């Protein structure tokens, strides 16, 4: 088999494509079309894959005159697209609902494309992606995006084989300053309290020192954090903000004992390297969708009623999901003791694990109120994907009718549950 994955999204998404890519690698020749800026990291993460870098991201390019933009994009992309069109893939996985992805899909026979298909000028969303859009409308439930991408394939590798189990390497505590979405990140003062508390309760972390991580734009935040930390902690901190490229970042984090981070690409990279993650998820970050992939990671998940929200919409309730993180003393007391009663209100302490579908998060402390409904969704999806199970135990009627719509069974679809099963039979 010769297969292509089109993943034109950001750093974190590239890392979260790992389950699918490793699945394909076991079947033969694997190719990856991605933004050129991510190619060096992708070569580290996916040494088995043939890279097809294109110019897709454009923040810097957008400042150039249109004719220079055209020269750059056509100059890089036309030869890359020609090469892709000439290769002769057996299957193409086009993962993102993006106009750019659709245009790349136009290079291929629609019959071999899964996900987002271009058919003679018409953009078509495959059935699995349509289903995902429906469950995404119920975000409190959520399915991990790495699993969603992987299940474009009829039988992806087991989730436990995707990333190594989390294990510290003696390199101390890494702290990620901020994600791309600022509301998801803890302000420096709050973060400083949590860092100081962690170092107090985990002498092993303190022994390894503190490494601050982030891009050049996060350097001022790092300086503020250092000012907020106790001087003896700040003195031992190693501020790498703005000094590493992506491969350098991977080297900087691979030996850490723990990475304290919001929902960031660096978090996913740490999980891919088996570095234990303690993540702070608030605002639009929801661990059931984008939590760190692998066994042994923890997420402090805010659960105010308004979450998960849309990052693009302004918060009209004063970012109240930040409140549970604000009392660093209370939070570190909880982290030190693990006493359920000490967990700040509005927070869940979630631990990663697996089921047949993929990554799950279970509460170490706090009440996950959507647990039963999430279980129902996973049962329905498992059946959809061919796992079967106890059919006399029906999935909630309401959920079935929200997720399965007429269009799914009224016309044949290459990604339907029946077609998946058929493929199992044929492949066998």
């Amino acid at each position, binding site marked *: 088999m010769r297969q292509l994955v089109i993943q034109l999204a950001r750093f974190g998404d590239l890392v979260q494509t790992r389950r699918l890519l490793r699945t394909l690698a076991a079947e033969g020749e694997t190719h990856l079309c991605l933004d050129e800026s991510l190619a060096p990291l992708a070569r580290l993460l996916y040494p088995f894959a043939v890279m097809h870098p*294109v*110019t*897709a991201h*454009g*923040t810097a*390019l*957008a400042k150039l*005159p*249109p*004719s*220079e*933009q*055209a*020269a750059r*994009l*056509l*100059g890089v*992309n*036309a*030869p*890359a*697209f*020609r*090469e*892709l*069109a000439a290769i002769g893939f057996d299957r193409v996985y086009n993962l993102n609902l993006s*106009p*750019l992805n*659709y*245009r*790349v899909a*136009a*290079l*291929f*026979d629609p019959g071999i494309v899964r996900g987002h298909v271009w058919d*003679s*000028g018409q953009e078509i969303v495959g059935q699995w992606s349509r289903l995902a859009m429906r469950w995404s409308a119920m975000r409190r439930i959520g399915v991990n995006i790495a699993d969603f991408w992987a299940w474009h394939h009829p039988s992806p590798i087991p989730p436990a084989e995707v990333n190594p189990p989390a294990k510290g390497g003696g390199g101390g505590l890494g702290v990620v300053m901020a994600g791309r979405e600022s509301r998801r990140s803890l302000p420096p003062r709050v973060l400083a309290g949590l860092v100081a508390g962690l170092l107090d309760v985990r002498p092993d972390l303190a022994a390894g020192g503190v490494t601050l991580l982030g891009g050049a734009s996060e350097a001022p935040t790092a300086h503020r954090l250092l000012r907020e930390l106790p001087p003896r902690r700040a003195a031992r901190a190693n501020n790498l903000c703005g000094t590493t490229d992506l491969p350098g970042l991977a080297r900087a984090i691979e030996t850490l004992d723990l990475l304290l981070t919001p929902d960031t690409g660096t978090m996913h990279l740490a999980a891919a390297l088996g570095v234990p993650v303690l993540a702070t998820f608030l605002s639009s970050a929801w661990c059931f969708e984008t939590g760190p992939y692998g066994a042994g990671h923890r997420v402090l998940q805010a659960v105010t009623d308004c979450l998960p929200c849309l990052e693009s919409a302004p918060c009209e309730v004063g970012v109240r999901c930040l409140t549970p993180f604000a009392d660093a003393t209370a939070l570190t007391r909880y982290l030190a003791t693990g006493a359920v009663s000490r967990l700040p209100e509005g927070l869940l302490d979630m631990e990663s694990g697996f089921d047949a579908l993929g990554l799950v998060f279970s509460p170490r402390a706090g009440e996950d109120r959507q647990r039963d409904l999430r279980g129902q969704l996973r049962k329905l999806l498992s059946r959809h994907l061919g796992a079967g199970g106890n059919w006399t135990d029906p999935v909630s009627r309401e959920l079935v009718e929200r997720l399965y719509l007429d269009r799914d069974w009224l016309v044949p679809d290459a990604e339907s549950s029946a077609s998946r099963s058929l493929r199992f039979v044929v492949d066998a």
Partner: protein
Amino acid sequence: MRVLVVLPMYGGSLPIGRYCAAALRELGHLVEVFEAPEFHASYKALKGLRVTTDRLQYLENSYLQVVSQAVLAKTETFEPDLLLAMAQAPLSVNALKRLRRDGVPTAMWFVEDYKLFTYWQAYAPHYDFFAVIQKGEFPDALRAVGVEHSLYLPLAALPDVHKPLELSSTERRIFGSDVSFMGAGYPNRRLAFRDVAARFDFKLWGTDWDGEALLAPFVQRGGARVSSEDCARIYNASKVNINLHSSIQADRLVSGGDFVNPRTFEIAACGAFQLVDRRSLMAELFAEDELATFDDASQLVPRIGHFLAHPNEREKLARKSRTRVLADHTYAARMTTLLNFIAAAKPGWPRDRAGTSAARMMADLPPELAGEIAALLERLGLPADAAFEDVVWSLRQRQGRLDGLDAAVLFLDEWRKLYARSTKKD
């Protein structure tokens, strides 16, 4: 400019819609066609249900609403400067109201007889421009129902399809005869051709000839529909093409009606000879020495006999009528007239799209890539100064897989929408 041509599901105006699209392309416009015929099979399937009539009507109406919605969706995406609908185009009144609300100029070319197809009274006021093939009281009637802008736009020929052909001996045997008629079996024709069939080497082409025992032996291909290409072969292969305008009245075989049918122009453009019944609007379209005519059914047999015996007269008339059609009666000329009429009635139309010139945008390309882009424009039939947006739409119309450069241009367009909004208008 961008024109969306909305075809009917089937019928006589269907080929005319295709000719309009071809002519508009020939004039350099970017044309998208709404292929209503592709929806016809589903519509017909409803009739095979054997359900109660109220159910069937409900289903048919619902389906036609869906098709109307499809036209609206296409309009939203394509953003035409003009939506040109042919008679019987599947556009509901609600859809037309929506188009007017959204500021999409609409025109219908009503290539039907308004006295027979009387539904225009309901929908004509919802079009901005209404082109017709008749004069007389029709313009006043249109004004009376609220149509502000109507124009007389006679039918025409498409020289790329209707042209002199070099036919093989086999084609001459299949399509040729001394005398032929190509068209549907209207009552006046059924009666008029009995005599002709009995006296000449005669072939009858087209549909709806069932139940006419005297003519049955002359009906070709079992009365099947004939393609535009085969029509041209028939015209080219026949010594005398009878062209008798249709009439549902059997008591007057030559109706002496007003409009001139498309066949008149098509046979002429083929450089073929026709004997056509005189129409009241014919004199302003053709001179007396450009067409052989007849006024009464009784003249038909003697006139055919005369022209069969005088091939030079046939050739002279055929040459003159072809010259006249190529000069004045092509679909390109008609579309020019229509667009000029709209432009005169609608100041500021078509609006300036403030598009980006593809040439300016590609100014910094290395020579090899610039050459490929130039070749691409030529392949798409676009001028060198085409707007980038038109290049993109032309690429989107392509069927099947795209090649690397095509996809890269589409990718660039989407990238600009994502990242370079502020620099779009250069």
